[in-house]
């Protein structure tokens, strides 16, 4: 086997890269862009995303080639010694005011008479809300192993989307899809850090093994992974609202900017989901949205824990809090006035026919968290002790959000999933789906579902390894979006087998698949949000925060969640998954903003995790979890609601609105001292 180390660009931006390599020791070789076919891995993204950069360098650290050899340490040294030259260009780091060449994707939509509604408004409020860069902190290192087995290319790689990886390799390396086998390797919680980036590393390993004729392994060090691979995108969301004398929204003028760094093939999805989320909670008769994915010369940035929606919920919830301040009202009161309800229309879509349980969630959440009393008493403390001399700096806030089971991408493959199930004569069930890369917890839930429908034992249910299911197309396994669909398909196949079971003899098989909704080929034709709501799980989250008056460190005291996610198949699994996601989401709120320009990662890592003894109490309540009907995903809910609630609680505690997340202890202290 050959090991490979990556030659990286020392420049942020440039053209026509040239890599100079001294004579290599015996057994070592280099692979550069010029050795590969000139196909892009993601041709639909602007000018494409290369396997190795050469004509255009887009960020410092971008891969320009590989050094292959038998000793990984020597490969590292040789790669570091490579000389890189290029026609250096001024990097585009500014993204909040951007040039047209930086726009990777733009979506705009308008509904209602915006100007008329602004004129009719008694209050206008305009704010900008900013979100930082976060690392996914997945456990498994980024890497790939690739080798040829006769005429077949095998690729081992930790990916959330093996089906897409295979398709991309086929296009970029001019191979037939049938000749490629992707073996997804073990993954921890990826938080969407492995949706598409592993495709680049896998393509590099595959190309190297094709050229060298030997197995090739690329394995990033932790530092390499931190510094050079994709992270959560930065965002800046500007909201201008107009509201009547009670605080009812009349007009929303929204600009969403998502900085996707050098590139991100899922830019349209990020933008569209953000645009949908921001209009999916509150009703408003006139809305204008301009949403952009903006490129900048920094590492690729994108999804994390939810595709695009976190930024949007964070901004709209923060804005509703600010609006409440403006009216000297309780934020819960202002929100209750505006919450979207059944029969109402979002963005001009026909009146919503599905039940929108936000109103109920909002009421229950206030009760279980004792929100009105706590909110009022913290306000009182602030009035009585503005300088916090008594040392009590606390806040509580609640937010609403949802997670959808759909994607909008023009790449319809994101929405197509399939499952095939076969029940044999010994009453053993074999389930084939590429989604079998999902976690053990998910598989436990799926087993339970199938066992219940077919009245068979859970131990008799097996999943076929994803590498043996290439004939079944599959969208990505995001936190629980894909899993919701798979859950539904497993139910469908099992019911269909069960129906035939007493008429036909075993073995019996059934297949089920989803297809992208037709309209998704042109997102502009859709009303944002409305299409998503039929598959949504709904959530309200309250967070109570205390600020350590000495260090400024925010300490989450308690989290309450009220969730409507349809039927809950396994309460224990659902609670465990939500508690784990809650921790991850809180860790993000208390982490440093990741600085891709910094050379080290120590600061960023320093206080990433919450210590066990600092963990808040987590209370979770499901609405009608035993009802009949479909089970829906829940894994993203903490990610879409906690940042907004945490931030708003911090705002109450501080008595002023910092308008950005994350906020570190030092910055909070400065704000406290200045207040």
């Amino acid at each position, binding site marked *: 086997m050959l090991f490979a180390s990556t030659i990286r660009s020392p420049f942020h931006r440039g053209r026509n890269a040239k890599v100079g390599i001294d004579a290599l020791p015996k057994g070592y070789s280099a692979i550069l862009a010029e050795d590969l076919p000139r196909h892009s891995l993601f041709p639909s993204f602007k000018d494409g995303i290369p396997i190795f950069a050469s004509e255009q360098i887009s960020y410092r650290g971008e891969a320009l080639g590989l050094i292959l050899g038998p000793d990984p340490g020597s490969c590292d040294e040789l790669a570091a010694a490579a000389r890189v030259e290029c026609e250096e260009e001024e990097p585009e780091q500014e993204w909040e005011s951007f040039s047209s060449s930086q726009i990777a994707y733009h979506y705009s939509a308008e509904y209602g008479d915006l100007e008329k509604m602004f004129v009719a408004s008694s209050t206008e409020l305009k704010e900008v809300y900013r979100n930082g860069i976060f690392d996914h*902190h997945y*456990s*498994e290192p980024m890497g790939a192993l690739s080798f040829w087995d006769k005429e077949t290319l095998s690729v081992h790689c930790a990916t959330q989307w093996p089906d897409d990886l295979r398709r991309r390799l086929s296009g970029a390396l001019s191979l037939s899809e049938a000749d490629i086998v992707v073996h997804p390797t*073990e*993954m*921890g*919680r990826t938080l969407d850090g492995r949706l598409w980036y592993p495709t680049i590393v896998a393509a590099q390993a595959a190309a190297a093994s094709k050229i060298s004729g030997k197995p090739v392994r690329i394995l990033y060090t*932790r530092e390499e992974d931190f510094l050079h691979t994709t992270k959560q995108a930065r965002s800046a969301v500007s909201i201008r609202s107009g509201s009547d004398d009670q605080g009812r929204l009349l007009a929303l003028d929204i600009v969403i900017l998502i900085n996707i760094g050098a590139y991100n093939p899922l830019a349209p999805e990020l933008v569209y989901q953000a645009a949908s989320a921001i209009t999916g909670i509150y009703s408003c008769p006139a809305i204008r949205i301009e949403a952009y994915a903006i490129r900048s010369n920094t590492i690729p940035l994108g999804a994390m824990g939810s595709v695009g929606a976190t930024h949007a919920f964070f901004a709209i919830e923060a804005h509703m809090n600010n609006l409440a301040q403006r009216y000297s009202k309780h934020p819960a009161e202002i929100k209750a006035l505006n919450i979207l309800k059944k029969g109402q229309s979002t963005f001009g879509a026909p009146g919503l026919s599905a039940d929108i349980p936000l109103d109920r969630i909002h009421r229950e959440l206030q009760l279980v968290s004792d929100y009105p009393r706590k909110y009022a008493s913290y306000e009182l403390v602030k009035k009585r002790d503005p300088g916090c001399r008594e040392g009590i700096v606390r806040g509580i806030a609640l937010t609403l959000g949802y997670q959808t089971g759909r994607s909008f991408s023009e790449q319809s493959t994101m929405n197509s999933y399939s499952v095939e199930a076969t029940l044999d004569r010994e009453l053993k069930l074999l389930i084939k789906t590429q989604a079998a890369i999902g*976690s*053990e*917890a998910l598989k*436990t839930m799926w087993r339970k579902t199938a066992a219940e429908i077919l009245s068979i034992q859970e131990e008799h249910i097996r999943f076929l390894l994803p590498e043996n299911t290439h004939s079944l197309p599959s969208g990505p396994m995001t936190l629980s979006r894909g899993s919701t669909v798979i859950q539904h398909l497993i139910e469908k196949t099992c019911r269909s087998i069960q129906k035939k079971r007493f008429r036909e003899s075993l073995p019996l098989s059934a297949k089920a698949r989803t297809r992208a909704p037709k309209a998704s080929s042109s997102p502009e034709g859709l009303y944002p949000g409305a299409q998503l709501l039929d598959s949504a799980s709904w959530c309200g989250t309250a967070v109570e925060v205390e600020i350590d008056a000495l260090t400024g460190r925010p300490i989450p005291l308690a989290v309450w969640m009220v969730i409507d996610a349809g039927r809950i198949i396994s309460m*224990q*699994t659902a*609670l*465990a*998954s939500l*508690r*784990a996601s809650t*921790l*991850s989401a*809180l*860790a993000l709120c208390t982490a440093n903003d990741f600085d891709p320009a910094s050379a080290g990662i*120590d600061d960023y*890592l*320093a206080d*990433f*995790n*919450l*210590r*066990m*003894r600092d*963990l808040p109490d*987590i209370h979770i309540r499901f609405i009608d979890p035993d009802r009949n009907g479909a089970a829906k995903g829940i894994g993203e809910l903490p990610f879409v609601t906690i940042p907004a609630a945490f931030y708003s609680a911090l705002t109450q505690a501080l008595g002023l609105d910092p308008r950005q997340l994350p906020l570190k202890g030092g910055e909070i202290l400065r704000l406290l001292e200045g207040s």
Partner: protein
Amino acid sequence: MIIDVTVNGVPRHLKSRSGDRLVDMLRKELKLLSLSPDCLQGRCGKCLVFMDGRIVHSCLVPAFKARATTILTFEAIAKNPEVKDIEKAFQITQTQPCPFCRSAKIMAIFDLLSRIPLPGEEDILEALDMVSCPCSDPLGLIQAVKLAAELRNKRKFSREA
């Protein structure tokens, strides 16, 4: 330089470069896959080993400090009945640490229960802080540790804890 050290009961002469950490040496020289160092800061615990009977983050120990010591990694304790108790407790409580930290979490709990057979909440939190991660269910983990203690005590003393 060469480091003489006993690893999992076998005396070894291991090569190490200046600046190497104990975890680097164990991974590179002995390919011990239970070690999957991540943070290199003593936080994630994915490098936990027993060094002369004391649990340590091997990413924080310079390789040369291991000279003439006895090191035990997860590979050496994996078949221990105590470990089986912990695995059973994980299974019953449906606590499923990811494959990358599973052995580290077991090491931390194994160490705790061998020191304190009936740990209190504080002891448990302290032990779990050695393998801190933002992606496992904290309540589930605490329940798993309590159950593992119960199973262990039942097995050892054949009575309820």
